[in-house]
C-alpha cells in the first residue's frame, strides 16, 4: 500500500472517513441531528469533489488508474457511478429527518450506515478483482439489511428486514459459489485476466465447460436476486413495504444500481467474452421481469408496495439495455442503461420522498387512500409527485422519457429479438401508466375522507425534493451532458466506441 494507492482510492477512503466522522460527531454531541446531517453532507461533498478530481486526474494520466496491486481501478465508469451514489446518499439523508425524528429514531446512525453502504457501492464500481467485488457487494448490502430494520420497534420494519436479510444472504452465498467456480477455472481473480482467459476459451474449439456453465448459472442467479429480477424478486415487496419510507427509496435505488454496477464489472468486463451464452438468459429475465412486475403492480393498493413492484419492472427495462449490448457490442446499450439508472434514481427517490413526507405524521399508511385529496391539501407536494410519476411512466419532457427512449433505441439498433423486446417494453410502459396514474387520480380527483391540515415539512426535505424534481426535468430537457458521460463511462469498460 502506497501513498499513490490512497490517492487513487481517495473518494472511497473519504467515504469511509465520512461515516466514521458522523459516528464520532454523534459521540461528542449525541442526538444533534443538524450536526450529524451537516457532517454527512460535508463529507459527501468532499467525496463527490474528490471523485471528480481523481476521475479527471486519471483521465489526464496524472494518477495511475489502478491501485492496490491492480485490484482497484478508476475509469470513467467509476467516476460516473460514484457521483451518482454520492448524490443518491446525500438525497436520502436529506429525506430522513422528517420521517425519523417524529418516530424517535436517531439520524446519526442512519446517516453513518447509509454512508457505509455507499462506500460498498463505490467499491463495486471500482473493483478490478472478484474478491474486491464481492466484499464491495457485502459492504453495500449489509447496511441495507440494517436500514430495512431501522425502525426496530415497528414489526413491519423488522419483518421486512429479516426477509431481506435472509434472501440477500442466501443470494450472496449462491453468487459466491459462482465466483468460486469462475476463479477455479480461470485461475485468477482479476477481471482482465479472466476476460483474456475466457476469450481464448470462447474462441477456441472448447465448448462452454459444464463447470463454467454452473458457475455462470450461479452468478446469474445471485445477481438476479440482487437486482430483484423475476423470479428472484420475492423479497422486494415486503422489504420495501416494511422499511421506513426514506429507506425504501434508498433500497429501491442504490443497491439496485450498485448491483447493475456489479453486472457491468462482472458480466460485461470480466465475463464479456461469454456474452453469447448469457444473452438469452438476460432476454428472458428482462421479459418476465418487466411484465410480471407491472402486472402485479396493477393489483396493489399500497403505494409503497406498488412502487416496489414497479421498480422490478424498471429493472426489466434496464436489462434490455444490457441485452442490447450483448446482442451487438456496437450498440451503446450500456450507455443507455447508465442513463436510465440516473433518471430512475432521481425520479424514484423523489416519489418515495413524497410518500415519506406524507408519513411525517406517524401512523399514516402508504395506502392509496393517503393520497386522496392531496392535490387540494398540499398542491406543491402533489404536483411534485405527479412529476415523478409521469417520469416513471416515461412522459416527455422528463428524464424518464429520454431514458426509456434511449433503451428502446438501443434495442432497436441491436435488432433481432431485441426489437420484439422493445415492443414488449413499450406495451409494458403503457400498462404501467395505469397504476401510476391511479395515484394521480387519488391526488387530484378524489377528496380526502376527512379534512386533515397540511403538514409542515422541513427545509431539508424540500431541498431534496427540489433537487430531485429539478434533475428529473433538466435531464429530460438537456440530456446531452449526461448522455455523453454515460456513453464515455460505457466505453471505458466496453473498450470500443459506440457507433
Amino acid at each position: 500500500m502506497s501513498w499513490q494507492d490512497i490517492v487513487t482510492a481517495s473518494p472511497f477512503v473519504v467515504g469511509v472517513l465520512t461515516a466514521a466522522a458522523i459516528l464520532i460527531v454523534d459521540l461528542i454531541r449525541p442526538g444533534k441531528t443538524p450536526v450529524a446531517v451537516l457532517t454527512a453532507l460535508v463529507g459527501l461533498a468532499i467525496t463527490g469533489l474528490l471523485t471528480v478530481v481523481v476521475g479527471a486526474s486519471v483521465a489526464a494520466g496524472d494518477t495511475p488508474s489502478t491501485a492496490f496491486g491492480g485490484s482497484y481501478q478508476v475509469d470513467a465508469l467509476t467516476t460516473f457511478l460514484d457521483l451518482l451514489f454520492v448524490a443518491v446518499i446525500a438525497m436520502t439523508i436529506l429525506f430522513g429527518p422528517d420521517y425519523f425524528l417524529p418516530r424517535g429514531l436517531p439520524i446519526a446512525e442512519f446517516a453513518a450506515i447509509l454512508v457505509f453502504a455507499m462506500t460498498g457501492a463505490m467499491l463495486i464500481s471500482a473493483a478490478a478483482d472478484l474478491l474486491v467485488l464481492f466484499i464491495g457487494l457485502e459492504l453495500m448490502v449489509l447496511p441495507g439489511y440494517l436500514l430495512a430494520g431501522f425502525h426496530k420497534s415497528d414489526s413491519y420494519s423488522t419483518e421486512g428486514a429479516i426477509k431481506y436479510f435472509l434472501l440477500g444472504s442466501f443470494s450472496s452465498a449462491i453468487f459466491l459459489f459462482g465466483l468460486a467456480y469462475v476463479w477455479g477455472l480461470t485461475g485468477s481473480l482479476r477481471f482482465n485476466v479472466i476476460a483474456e482467459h475466457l476469450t481464448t476459451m470462447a474462441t477456441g474449439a472448447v465448448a462452454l465447460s459444464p463447470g463454467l456453465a454452473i458457475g455462470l448459472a450461479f452468478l446469474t442467479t445471485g445477481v438476479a436476486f440482487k437486482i430483484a429480477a423475476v423470479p428472484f424478486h420475492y423479497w422486494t415487496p415486503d422489504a420495501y413495504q416494511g422499511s421506513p419510507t426514506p429507506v425504501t427509496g434508498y433500497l429501491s435505488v442504490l443497491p439496485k444500481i450498485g448491483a447493475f454496477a456489479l453486472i457491468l464489472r462482472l458480466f460485461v468486463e470480466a465475463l464479456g467474452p461469454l456474452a453469447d451464452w448469457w444473452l438469452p438468459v438476460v432476454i428472458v429475465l428482462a421479459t418476465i421481469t418487466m411484465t410480471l412486475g407491472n402486472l402485479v403492480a396493477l393489483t396493489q393498493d399500497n403505494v409503497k408496495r406498488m412502487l416496489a413492484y414497479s421498480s422490478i419492472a424498471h429493472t426489466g427495462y434496464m436489462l434490455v439495455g444490457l441485452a442490447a449490448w450483448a446482442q451487438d457490442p456496437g450498440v451503446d446499450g450500456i450507455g443507455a442503461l447508465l442513463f436510465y439508472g440516473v433518471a430512475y434514481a432521481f425520479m424514484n427517490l423523489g416519489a418515495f420522498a413524497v410518500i415519506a413526507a406524507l408519513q411525517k405524521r406517524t401512523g399514516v399508511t402508504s395506502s392509496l387512500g393517503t393520497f386522496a385529496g392531496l392535490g387540494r391539501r398540499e398542491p406543491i407536494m402533489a404536483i411534485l409527485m405527479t412529476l415523478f410519476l409521469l417520469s416513471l411512466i416515461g412522459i416527455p419532457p422528463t428524464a424518464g422519457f429520454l431514458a426509456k427512449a434511449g433503451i428502446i433505441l438501443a434495442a432497436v439498433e441491436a435488432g433481432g429479438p431485441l426489437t420484439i423486446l422493445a415492443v414488449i417494453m413499450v406495451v409494458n410502459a403503457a400498462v404501467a401508466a395505469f397504476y401510476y396514474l391511479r395515484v394521480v387520480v387519488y391526488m387530484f380527483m378524489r377528496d380526502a375522507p376527512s379534512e386533515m391540515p397540511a403538514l409542515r415539512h422541513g427545509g431539508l426535505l424540500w431541498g431534496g425534493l427540489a433537487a430531485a424534481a429539478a434533475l428529473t426535468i433538466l435531464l429530460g430537457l438537456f440530456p446531452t451532458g449526461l448522455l455523453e458521460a454515460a456513453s464515455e463511462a460505457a466505453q471505458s469498460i466496453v473498450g470500443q466506441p459506440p457507433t
Partner: protein
Amino acid sequence: MDVNSIPILTIVTFLPLIGALIIAVAPPSAARATALAFALLTFVISLFLLVGYLPGRPGFQFVETADWIPAFGIQYKLGADGLSVSLVVLTTLLSWIAILASFKPIQTRIKEYMISFLILEVGMIGVFLALDTFLFYIFWEIVLVPMYLIIGIWGGANRIYATMKFVLYTLVGSLLMLVAILATAFAYQSGHDGAWVGAFDFETLKAYAGTGGFADGLQILAFLAFFLAFAIKVPMFPFHTWLPDAHTEAPTAGSVILAAVLLKLGAYGFIRFALPLYPSAAETFAPVIIVLSLIAIIYGAIVALVQPDLKRLVAYSSVSHMGFVTLGIFVFTEQGLQGAILQMINHGLITGALFLLVGVIYERTHDRTIAKMGGLSAKMPVYVAVFGFFVFASAGLPGLSGFVGEFLVLVGTFEVDPYAAAVATFVMVLAASYLLYMYGRVAFGELSDFLAGLGDHLTDMTPVEILTLVPLGTLVVIFGIQPGLLLDLFQGTVVETLAVVDPASPIEIPQAAVIGLLAIVLILVLARVGWAILRPRPTFEPEGGAAH
C-alpha cells in the same frame, strides 16, 4: 430588423407556457384573465403566421433549427407549411374560445385548470410545428397529460374511467410510434455510415424516403406503428371507443378542444409523417384504411342516430366526420386530400361550436338527454337559431363550409372508386337525418316538462356565449362561400404530399368489401328506422343536480 430573425414559431408555441408559469405564481383571482390574455395574444401572433406565410413556395417556412441532443442528431426544429399554419391558427383560435367558454362552468381549481389548458395549447401547437420526429413525439405526449387532467378533474361523474381509457388507448399507440420513430432514425443512421446527423430531421428523412431508402419491412412495421397511434387519435373505427366516453365526461371546453384540435393531430400525423416517410407501406395499406374509413363513416352516423345523449351524439358524429378525413387522405387524389384538410378545419370549427352549444344547454339544465328536451325555441330563440346554423353546417348544407370538404372528398373518392363514393354519399344524407332529427327534438314542439320545470333558469345565451360562437360561425360562412382561401393556403402541401405517393399504381379497393358495406348500411338503416318506429318510448327518471 429582419422579420425572419424573429423566432416566431417558438414564440407562438411557448407563449402559453409563459402564461401558465405566470398563473402558477399569481393569485388565483387573476388566473382567468391571465389565461385569456395569453391565449388571445398567442392567437394574434399566430395570425402573423397566416399573413407572413407565402403560399406557393415549396417546403417549410419560418424554419428554426437548434441542436438539442447532438449525440443522436436530435434537433429542436420547427417549421410551418400551409397545413401547419392553418391548423395552428385553428388551435389558437379555439384555445381562447375554449378558455372564455370555461369561465362560468369551471368554478373549482381555476388556477390548475388554466395552467392545464395553456400547457395543452403548447403541446398542440408544437405537434403542428415540429419538424423533428423526436420533438414531434415529445409534443405529442405533452398533449396527453393536461387533457388527462382536464377530463379527470373537471369532468363528469364517470370521469376517471373515461380519462383512464383515453390515456391508455393513446399511450399504447404513441409508445409504439416511439419505437417506430427510433427504428426509422436507426435505419437512416445505418444507411449513412453510422452518422446520426439528420436521423430525426423530417425533411432529411422525407428526402431519404423519396429515394427509396427505407426497406419495405421497416416501412410496413413503422407505418403500422404510426397508423395505430394516429388511428387511435383520429379516431378510426375500431379504435374509437375511448372517444364517446371522453367527450361525455369532459367539461365543455375540454370537449371542444378534443373534437376541434386533438382529433386533428392524428389526421395531421398521417399527412405529415406517415405518408411521406413510408409511401410504399401507405399504398399497401390504403385499401384497408379506406374500408375502415367507410365503416367509420357509416358506423358513426348510425350510432349517432340512436344516441340519447346530446354530447354522445356529437361525439359519434365526429367519428363519422373524421372518417371522411381519413378517406380523403388515403384515396391519394388531389381533391381527396384537399377535401380531407378542409374537412379537418371545418370539423374543428363546426364540431367545436356544437360542443359549445351543448355546453350552453348543459349549463342551464345540467342534463343532456335529448328525450328530455323539446320546444326550446320558445324560451331561447337566439340559441335555437345559432344551434340550427351549426347543425346545418354539420349536416353539410351547401353554402356552409361543412359541405365543401365532404364534397371534395367524395369527388376524390369517386375518381378512385365510385361505389365507395356512393357509400359515403349515402351517409352524408344519413348524417343530415340524425342531426336534423336531434335538432327538431330539441328546438321545436311543445316545451318539455323537464325544461318547463326549470322556469327562469332557462335564459337565452349570454353575450359571452355568443361571443365565443361568432368567430366560428363567421369562418364557417366564409369558408363555405370561399373555400379557395383555404385551398390556396395548403395547395403546396397537397401537391408535395401526393408527389411522394407513386401515381402509377392506383389504389385498388376491394369491391366486395365496399358492396358488402353498402348492403350492411341499407340493412342497418332499415332495421334502425324500424326499431325507432316500433320501440317503446324510453322514460327518463329525473336525475337532478349537477354531475360534478
